[in-house]
């Protein structure tokens, strides 16, 4: 279906990634946002707070991030599309509720505008240090989707996509901005509503009798209903059966958790998005995401001027990770170079995919600024030596 034109601010604007994220949420049909102030994400909720009253939305500033990350789930079960927004310390507090959303299959969006950590770290300065937390932060096993915009335009586009994926797979979707993308101001084009694709909530349309809240379809995703519709749903974070009732056995755990993992794993190829530049025939492929994908460009261009065959693979979906594509390339390239603003997170996933077949070179950075492109250039050059 197409976006509801109410609220879609069609036009070309000069706005930052945080503001673009807010507009993306509105365009996606989000009408419930709960948040708690935290740099560098606060501009998202500030814009939502300004825009929502006149378009029928509810913004509530909760008492903390824990409350925000579960208030949105209450709103979803009452029928809203909902989002919360935070940065590192708040993201850490939200982990339990990412697990709850995964376990109860509550479609919702978590935005993390990454800053340097650990702990309070550098509140106003960039990092990409929450990438593994995005994948593994909540206890137990579950599938997850995380997207990494590298511009304000993509912040808009991927926010819409995050909502769509959350509805399609009944899963929390994490939008992993970084401080640079959040605060970078660029041209953002918001299309007319009839050009914005919206994946509608997968409401049960069959007979009321015999409806099972957690009976999955072919794609591993069960249909949903909402509170107040007379289904007497039971939703629990405990391991549950298809009725949603707690069952405390290893067999029930195996059946449920296997499906929670598989619904993302088996649909990974349909979910994954990345962009490639001159990867075919490359000796070295730089794998990057977020702001670092832009910082890598002058380094790659310099190396090409040096006569090296350098490709660039930019992750748009960090999770699920494009393992298959990296595996294919690992038979063809001499090295992968992985710059990221952390001491090595997504590089582990590249290494896992490559599985020793070729060289993988991390370009680490502790956070607080972007890389110096010279460091990435140096890593590209060195990756082909010895």
């Amino acid at each position: 279906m197409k976006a509801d034109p109410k609220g879609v601010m069609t036009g070309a604007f000069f706005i930052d990634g945080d503001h673009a994220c807010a507009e993306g949420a509105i365009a996606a049909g989000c009408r419930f946002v709960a948040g708690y102030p935290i740099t560098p994400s606060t501009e998202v909720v500030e814009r939502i707070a300004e825009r929502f009253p006149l378009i029928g939305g509810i913004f509530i500033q909760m008492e903390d991030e824990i409350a925000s990350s579960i208030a949105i789930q209450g709103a979803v079960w009452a029928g809203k599309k909902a989002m919360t927004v935070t940065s590192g310390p708040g993201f850490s507090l939200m982990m339990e509720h990412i697990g709850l959303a995964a376990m109860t299959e509550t479609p919702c969006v978590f935005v993390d505008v990454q800053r340097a950590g650990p702990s309070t770290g550098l509140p106003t300065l960039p990092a990409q240090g929450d990438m593994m937390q995005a994948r593994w932060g909540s206890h137990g096993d579950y599938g997850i989707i995380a997207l990494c915009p590298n511009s304000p335009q993509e912040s808009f586009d991927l926010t819409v996509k995050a909502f769509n994926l959350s509805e399609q797979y009944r899963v929390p979707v994490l939008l992993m901005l970084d401080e640079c993308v959040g605060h970078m101001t660029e041209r953002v084009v918001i299309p007319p509503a009839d050009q914005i694709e919206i994946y509608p909530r997968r409401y049960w349309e069959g007979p009321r009798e015999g409806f099972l809240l957690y009976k999955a379809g072919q794609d591993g995703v069960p249909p949903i209903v909402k509170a107040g519709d007379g289904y007497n749903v039971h939703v629990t974070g405990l391991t549950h059966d298809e009725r949603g009732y707690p069952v405390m056995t290893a067999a029930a755990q195996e059946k449920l958790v296997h499906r929670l993992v598989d619904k993302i794993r088996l649909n990974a190829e349909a979910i994954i998005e990345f962009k490639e530049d001159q990867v075919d025939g490359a000796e070295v492929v730089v794998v990057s995401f977020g702001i670092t994908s832009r910082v890598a460009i002058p380094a790659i261009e310099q190396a090409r001027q040096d006569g090296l065959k350098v490709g660039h693979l930019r992750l748009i979906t960090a999770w699920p990770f494009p393992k298959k594509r990296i595996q294919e390339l690992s038979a063809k390239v001499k090295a992968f170079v992985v710059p990221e603003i952390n001491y090595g997170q997504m590089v582990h996933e590249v290494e896992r995919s490559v599985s020793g077949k070729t060289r993988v070179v991390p370009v680490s950075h502790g956070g607080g600024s972007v890389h110096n492109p010279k460091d990435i250039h140096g890593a590209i050059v060195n990756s082909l030596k010895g």
Partner: protein
Amino acid sequence: MTEESMDVDVSMPTNAVEEYLRMERMPHIWCPGCGIGSTVNCFAHALEASGLDLKKVAVVSGIGCTGRVAGYLKLDSFHTTHGRAIPFATGLKLANPELKVVVYSGDGDLTAIGGNHFIHAARRNVDMTVILINNFIYGMTGGQVAPTTPVGATASTTPYGNFEEAFNLPYLAESCGAVYVARWTAFHVRHAAKSIKDALLKKGFSFVEILAPCPTLYSRRNKLGDGLDQMKFYAANSEIQNDADTKTVGLTFQGKIVVGKFVDKDKPTYLDSMNNFYIQKFGDRYAPYKG
């Protein structure tokens, strides 16, 4: 007992509340002598007396013994995370104001790990009913000290006795802004059912505390006998003081229990305040929010 009029009929046979329960989930997990089941009985009778459309009633629980209540009620029911039933309920209510949202959880869940959410929901006057079952202890995890454990009582993590002062929950709720505050015990089934009914029909943040025996982990460790002994204690030591000053109703170890309806006042709810404020601000440009 008071002569207060009772319009809640609790004289029906015990299976009269089956239509409110997920009977396929019986037997429940509560211990013999536990008071939680009695409170669920009160709740079912209150629901019936309230005349509410059950399709529009949602129950949210946290974690713990009382946290299991949501799973036994044949309503839209949500068993959330430890301490977070209230913010989940806040989202549910604000997203669909047509719903009657009830939070049903325990003392540890709502006032220790969930204490921050409790005070803020009361402050905002979010339209919800919070039913708190106070058994003075963490039951599910094996009898650890709670913010409600009286000084002098023993718990597994206060093996020499508890020296921390306990919360006076009606006082806490009132001072944070609750519009309806009552306390009963599992012995006072008629009063409790009546209060729950009144709370369900009250607009705003309503709070009903019900003291309940935990024979397995509180009474036994404190040598207070079984569930029946605790009920007898409640009967002998409770004093109904409607409209009592909540400052004065704090509980002590095996001391006098002041019960009654302490607060019943009117105040705009969160959504009423929001709508009124924005109508003043934006005039006709603002369409009052209805969900």
